[in-house]
């Protein structure tokens, strides 16, 4: 029974090392689809670029109460909005894998129990980072400028992407729970829309009716956008950054275990 002893031996390394190597395999697999289906990348970048241009030129003149250049105010909001909208793809991708029977295969393999989800959320984070870069370039063409130093600028982009990563785990939980591609698409998006628009992403909170301001100020998107904006505009970054990180960690603490549990039970 050499295979059995070998299996037992191999079983010992079901640990952090396995989680790492399996997650790398899964991330690579998910990222391969972008060079293989180039149109996918084109279309997942067109929408955020469209938002940059539409908001700048259509709403830019009408939205008041913004000190300074509107595009400088807008772009941090678009960073966060793009990362959050992008995170809804996590659940859709997982639902697709489930639909194709791939999740069933992964679950029958002696691989790490959370690597499939880690691979998916990380690869979506990588894509988000790429898209945020691209938007920065488009932003620069229409007059956007970072006001801080390079570290602040990188931190701004990274915070937006990390926030999207946390939302990816909510999306993963939804995708593993609803069990159907179309439902995952709708269920993943419907709550994200008001969350993003009823925030400080596109307009100053002060311009909203009073009852909405209270909600908007507590919105995790608002605190994150405020933190990203402070890093971009080189204004005081506290306390927004702490609120944002608290939300980020809180979301991960709740939704990572929930998503992994849903994965283990998914059939």
């Amino acid at each position, binding site marked *: 029974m050499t*295979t*059995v002893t*070998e*299996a*037992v031996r*191999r*079983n010992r*390394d*079901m640990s952090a090392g*396995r989680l790492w*190597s*399996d997650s790398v*395999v899964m991330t690579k*697999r998910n990222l*391969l*689809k972008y060079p*293989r*289906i180039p149109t996918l990348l084109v279309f997942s970048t067109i929408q955020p670029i469209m938002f940059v241009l539409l908001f700048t030129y259509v709403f830019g003149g009408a939205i008041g109460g913004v000190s300074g250049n509107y595009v400088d105010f807008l772009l941090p909001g678009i960073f966060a909005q793009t990362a959050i909208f992008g995170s809804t793809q996590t659940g859709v991708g997982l639902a697709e894998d*489930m*639909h*194709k*029977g*791939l999740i*069933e*295969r*992964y*679950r*029958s*393999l*002696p*691989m790490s129990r959370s*690597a499939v989800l880690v691979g998916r959320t990380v690869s979506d984070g990588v894509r988000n980072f790429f898209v945020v870069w691209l938007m920065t370039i488009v932003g620069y063409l229409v007059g956007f400028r970072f006001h801080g130093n390079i570290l602040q600028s990188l931190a701004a982009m990274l915070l937006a992407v990390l926030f999207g990563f946390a939302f990816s785990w909510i999306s993963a939980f939804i995708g593993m729970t609803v*069990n*159907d591609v179309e439902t995952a698409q709708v269920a993943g998006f419907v709550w994200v829309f008001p969350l993003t628009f009823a925030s400080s992403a596109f307009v100053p909170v002060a311009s909203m009716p009073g009852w909405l301001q209270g909600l908007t100020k507590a919105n995790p998107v608002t605190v994150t956008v405020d933190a990203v904006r402070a890093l971009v505009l080189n204004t005081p970054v506290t306390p927004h950054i702490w609120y944002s990180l608290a939300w980020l960690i809180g979301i991960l603490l709740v939704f990572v275990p929930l998503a992994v549990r849903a994965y283990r039970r998914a*059939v």
Partner: protein
Amino acid sequence: MGAIEVEGVSKNFGELCALDNINLDIEPGTVYGLLGPNGAGKTTAVRILTTLLDLDSGRATVAGFDVATQATQLRHVIGLAGQYAAVDEILTGWENIEMVARLYGFNRRESARRGDSLLERFELADARDRQVKTYSGGMRRRLDLAASLVGDPEVLFLDEPTTGLDPRSRFALWDTIEQLVDGGTTLMLTTQYLEEADRLAHRIGVIDHGELIAEGTSDELKGKVGGDVLALEIADASQTAAAAEAVRNVGSEAPRIEGANDVIVPVSTHVGVITDAVRALDAAGIKLTDLAIRRPTLDDVFMTLTGHRAEAEAAADSEPETEPRRKRGGRR
């Protein structure tokens, strides 16, 4: 020690009893066919044995590992090819195998080697670097089967391996599976095709509504139905009932009607029954398209044991779906 041992396993989905007190003991190196219509509980059984689903009560081991307490060890020694070819369309054939090998914990070089040798073995070497989305249905199934063998499994589970394949691909896959079994792997196979179980399995378990209703070799099961039958195919379906009436006294028991045109007459002897039947039908003015004496098929077994047929019709009747599945409509 059996390769698969199942003792009193039950599984409910809410009110629905998907498996009811199942017992199995499968010898190493043999092929076990789990035969039943859609929703009988076949897939539930496979999912429990491959650790995809928890059992409600009872105990089950595969290759000596308990499904509930030693799931990780168990996953090292099994291979599973599910009902639908679980292959990644974006990746090439080789990348699919290599990835599964990496996930079994093999290093890069060994994973690459397994990718090459398995593609060779399943005659996919020519399509090695093509994306799987360009593969035919039969090629996908072969790749899926190859992926299930990456870890050199002691016990292999194939859940309806030929469902949805055209006849030619099905026969080719049967050959492949037979070669595989010659290598000494224990195989559990589920199928709704009686012919498939008959051809591939050493022992067959018949499952219906979550219960194992009969078990044995193909011959033993056929023996349960009794002896040979004279099968008549009537040219005009409206005359089928009249034909059954006409041959009432030809066989050893009353004839039964199966399907629109088929009359089955149990016989105890071959002597004279064909001429008797032909005379009786000719006298009644009934024309035949076919007649033959045959040993009972597994379909007859199913009919006798359950009172309904095993294939297609069973799926369409009003029985509730006991295996909740994701929607996969229109995929093939």
